[in-house]
């Protein structure tokens, strides 16, 4: 018994010893755990801090309009919601640092009319409504006839803009002349003022009036079109914003159109995608403008119809020969 108690007492003592130990151990372990937790937390926090502040983490690479890659802090980001106000603002301002020009090589035009259909498709026009049209030209009885595509000349001194009483038609910094169908009152002064007959009036309800209902009006596309207002060639400003060639230029199968930037002294052919110096192209091919004597300073150049690449069936009557 005593043996037992003797046996038991150390056991008991052991037990008590064990229990004090365990309390201490508990605190010790807790301390250890706490230290580990604190250290881990600190490590995670410092890691997070490092990630937050490390150079390049909060920056995003962005390509600017003049083709430079820059880094922009994420905080400075602003999502562009395409709404009417935004479309109007960007449409009014135009693209900075550009001066768009078109060169039309009359020697190559074979009246494929792909430019016309591409344009009408983009701007929701009827087949008889033209932003661009190919005219049959013949200077005199004994000279060869030729086809001449005629878009808006996007004059630097535009008579249409001067006569508009409501600031609906305007010039942009990149040289493009646009019309805002939401402002236009349909007075048609601009049609009377334009020496190139580049404008059309919507006498009837536009082709896709029903389908276009509800889409925000894009001043760079003139869609949706509006009855009782003016519409005209826009140099496909919406495509230029994306760095793409205009609808007509890229639709031409015969390499008639060159389009580019006068500031960069370069034009790109819409068919072959070859790029040329604008100044050289105009000099070598004797480029000219339509009615420069009016002082309108057009942004469209023509290359003369030399070495026509096609035959009219009847040179005497070009209209019959088409």
């Amino acid at each position, binding site marked *: 018994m005593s043996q037992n108690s003797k046996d038991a007492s150390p056991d008991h003592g052991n037990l008590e010893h064990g229990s004090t130990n365990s309390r201490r151990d508990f605190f010790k372990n807790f301390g250890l755990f706490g230290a580990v937790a604190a250290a881990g937390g600190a490590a995670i926090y410092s890691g997070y801090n490092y990630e937050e502040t490390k150079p390049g983490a909060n920056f995003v690479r962005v390509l600017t309009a*003049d*083709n*430079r890659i820059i880094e922009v802090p994420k905080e400075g980001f602003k999502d562009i919601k395409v709404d009417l106000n935004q479309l109007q603002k960007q449409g009014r301002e*135009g693209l*900075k*640092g*550009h*001066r768009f020009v078109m060169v039309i090589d009359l020697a190559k035009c074979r009246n494929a009319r792909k430019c016309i259909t591409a344009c009408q498709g983009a701007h929701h026009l009827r087949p008889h409504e033209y932003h661009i049209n190919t005219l049959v030209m013949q200077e005199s009885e004994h000279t060869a006839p030729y086809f001449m595509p005629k878009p808006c000349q996007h004059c*630097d*001194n535009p008579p249409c*803009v*001067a*006569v*508009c*009483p*409501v*600031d609906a038609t*305007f*010039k*942009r*910094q*990149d*040289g493009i002349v646009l019309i805002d169908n939401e402002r236009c009152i349909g007075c048609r002064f601009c049609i009377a003022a334009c020496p190139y007959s580049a404008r059309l009036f919507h006498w009837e309800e536009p082709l896709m009036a029903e389908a276009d209902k509800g889409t925000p009006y894009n001043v760079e596309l003139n869609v949706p079109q509006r009855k009782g207002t003016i519409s005209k060639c826009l140099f496909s400003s919406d495509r230029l914003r994306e*760095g*793409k*060639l205009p609808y007509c230029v890229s639709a031409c*199968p015969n390499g008639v159109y060159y*389009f*580019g*930037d006068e*500031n*960069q*002294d*370069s*034009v*790109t052919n819409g*068919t*072959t*995608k*070859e*790029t*040329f*110096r604008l100044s050289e192209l105009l000099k070598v091919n004797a480029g000219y403008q339509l009615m420069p004597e009016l002082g309108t300073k057009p942004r469209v150049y023509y290359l003369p119809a030399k070495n026509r690449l096609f035959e009219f069936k009847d040179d005497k009557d070009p209209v019959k020969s088409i």
Partner: protein
Amino acid sequence: MKRYFILLIIVRFSLQLSAQEWVVAPADAALKSPFAFTDSTRKAGEAIYVANCKSCHGDPGKNNAIQLVPIPPDAASVKMQANTDGAMHYKLIQGRGPMPSFKNTLSSTDLWRVISFMRGYNPKYVQEVALPTIAGAAAQNVSIKLDWNKASGQVEASLTSLKGQVSQPVAGAEVKLFAKRYFGNLPVDEARKSDAAGKVAFNFPKDLPGDSIGNVQLIVKLTDEVAYGEASAEATLAVGVPTNRPALTAPRAMWGVLAKAPIWLIFAYLLAVLTAWGFIAYVISQIKAIYRAGSKEQL
């Protein structure tokens, strides 16, 4: 009788159409792809096909091409697959009628990738890969560095290739220089071959416009993709003329809005209005004076 006549015309035109075969010279038709067609080339080709060909030719095997005259053949059709690889490559480069030329828009490697994609729809097709040329075996992984030599006014490119761990100059390789423009790449100078030290010097025009500080983004490319693979480099160098032209809306003009109106016009208008109102005010003041004088007399 009339019916037979119409039939005769139809037969005649169909004969004419079939007579307009697109003939490819034997040398061009015998051209072979420099690399083997694999799943990865087919995948890369598919992306290029979707971006450049699908709008007219439709999805391969689905016969949903756009209804042009003539109808663009389906990529999986017997007619299309009857072409040799070289003939396909030639036709993609040349273009004909409504089929555009891809000479300046797609690289030769990209064209072979498209062909690789189209061949994926021909179970009977067995590829013959071109034998690698000696130059190709000698120089792979070519890297190009661009520099501007201000003294000579030339843009210099140096071509090196890695052979094991050692970089060696690439001699006798033809390179082209382009200046990046808004809608395309403007070729600068002619294509030139590298010398023994792997150097090429391009004459750069003195009057090419750059951005506001004269920077021009330059691209240099190796022309012989078969021998060297695709190798190009880009660099932005201050080789251009600084161009900072004012916006075309900057000058004042008679454009309907006050913000744009010429100063003299604003002044002339204000003067006219003030003169008119001033005259009216003077007349009223005189009438008032007469009235006052009259009322004084009465007193």
